[in-house]
């Protein structure tokens, strides 16, 4: 099955490992990711804070390109890109005048409707079809993950059809269950990691990340599993900053869901580039004899 693919900027830079993992894992599941040509930045949260028009116009151009591929569905693994693109699609549908203004400058115009899917929606359909269980047969015993969703998987600035429970989503838990992993029940799965405030408002972000980490540790988690590159990067890169500040001694690996799936499919650490985390992630895997 072919599916349109929007990687977004972070999957081509600091989270390039997630791009590689998505390509490999979905290929193994029989889903071919077709990167849409010449895509542009979605504007992320910054556009919403700086320029409302660009917040719609930037993802709108990508929608036009995606539609021109003729494919019926586009996967967007980054939560911010997913949220912004889905919101732009819904806003344009509600506002034909705005759509006309934007279309006038686009070489690939928006006309129909392509389904915008998060990584979890596509993975869940692969769980349902039995492909996940068939391809991922290695048992990963000993992992006690806290599935962390962050904000943008279920909360949106404008009304859109939300694919999971807003306060207690279950998508990641379902995918992990399909490969025999029982996730922990915990309270901070949709709390905010602070996103860009980790750079521009450090104290606020550190307090947010510490709360998330403390609950995960208290519940007995030995790792996080995430789908959002921003959440992954923050929790992965800042543990040595917010940890000492908030009295947290533990350090937890922050795995992309694609890393867990890849491991269960028999892929190696280097193939999945798990050795490029800022908080060591291979130590736990070695301890549990998973690699």
């Amino acid at each position: 099955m072919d599916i349109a693919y929007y990687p977004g900027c972070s999957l081509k830079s600091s989270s390039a490992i997630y791009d590689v993992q998505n390509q490999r894992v979905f290929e193994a599941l029989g889903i071919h990711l077709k990167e849409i040509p010449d895509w542009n930045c979605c504007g992320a949260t910054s556009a919403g804070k700086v320029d409302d028009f660009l917040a719609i116009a930037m993802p709108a151009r990508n929608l036009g390109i995606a539609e021109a591929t003729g494919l019926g569905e586009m996967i967007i693994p980054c939560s911010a890109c997913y949220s912004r693109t889905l919101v732009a699609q819904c806003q344009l549908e509600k506002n034909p005048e705005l759509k006309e203004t934007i279309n006038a400058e686009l070489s690939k115009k928006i006309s129909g409707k392509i389904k915008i899917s998060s990584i979890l929606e596509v993975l869940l359909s692969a769980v349902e079809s039995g492909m996940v269980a068939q391809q991922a047969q290695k048992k990963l015993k000993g992992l006690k993950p806290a599935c962390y969703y962050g904000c943008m998987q279920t909360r949106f600035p404008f009304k859109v059809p939300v694919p999971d429970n807003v306060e207690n989503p279950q998508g990641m838990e379902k995918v992990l269950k399909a490969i025999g992993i029982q996730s922990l029940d915990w309270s901070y799965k949709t709390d905010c990691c602070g996103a860009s405030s980790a750079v521009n408002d450090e104290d606020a972000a550190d307090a947010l990340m510490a709360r998330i980490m403390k609950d995960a540790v208290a519940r007995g988690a030995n790792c996080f599993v995430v789908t959002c590159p921003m959440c992954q990067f923050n929790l992965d890169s800042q543990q040595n900053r917010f940890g000492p500040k908030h009295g947290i001694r533990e350090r937890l690996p922050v795995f992309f869901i694609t890393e867990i799936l890849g491991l269960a499919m028999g892929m190696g650490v280097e193939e999945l580039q798990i050795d490029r985390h800022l908080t060591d992630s291979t130590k736990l895997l070695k301890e549990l004899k998973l690699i």
Partner: protein
Amino acid sequence: MTIPAHEYDPEKARSLMNEVSERSGQNLSACYQCRRCAAGCPVGEETGYVTPDRLIRMIALGDRRAALENELVWRCVSCYTCGTRCPNDIQTARITETLKKMAKEAHLEPLRPKIADFHSSFLESGVRWGRVNEMEFMGIYEMKGALKNMKRKDFKAIAEELKTQTDFGLTMLKHKRMHMGLLMSKGRKEIQKLQKKAKKQRGK
């Protein structure tokens, strides 16, 4: 904090309320001050007395200055928890996003310049190249901060920031998480044209 009752001017209040409602796409008059937004706000401890419900009240009272210049407007992380929990479907984070833009248009100095600089540097990079280049936009963001510190003659802050960023950069390099090449999209021309067109329309 905000204007006393005897200074309340219904005309002024209505015009501010309408402006924010229209631009944010939120029906502010639906707020009945239940404070579920305040209870769920993850940065509540950082924003002092200003909670989302109180921000709406400032707008309803027509207190433009208080509404544009407060910690919540700047430190809101746009997690959208308030709006998800609002029984009247008001997405308060859209209000803080709108007030940031209104503060800029009113030429007010941002209460948190680092936050304002970050988001403008990010978006400018995205529009300039069609894709965001992390190294480039972070460099510009850091330069903006350094210039402000320079004006204040705060050389200690400049040195500290330089050390923090160098250490972080080295960690990123060590783990091969730093991207060196330039990301670009030819479509940036279309985006730039759209931006110009929208600016012209707004100017009218």
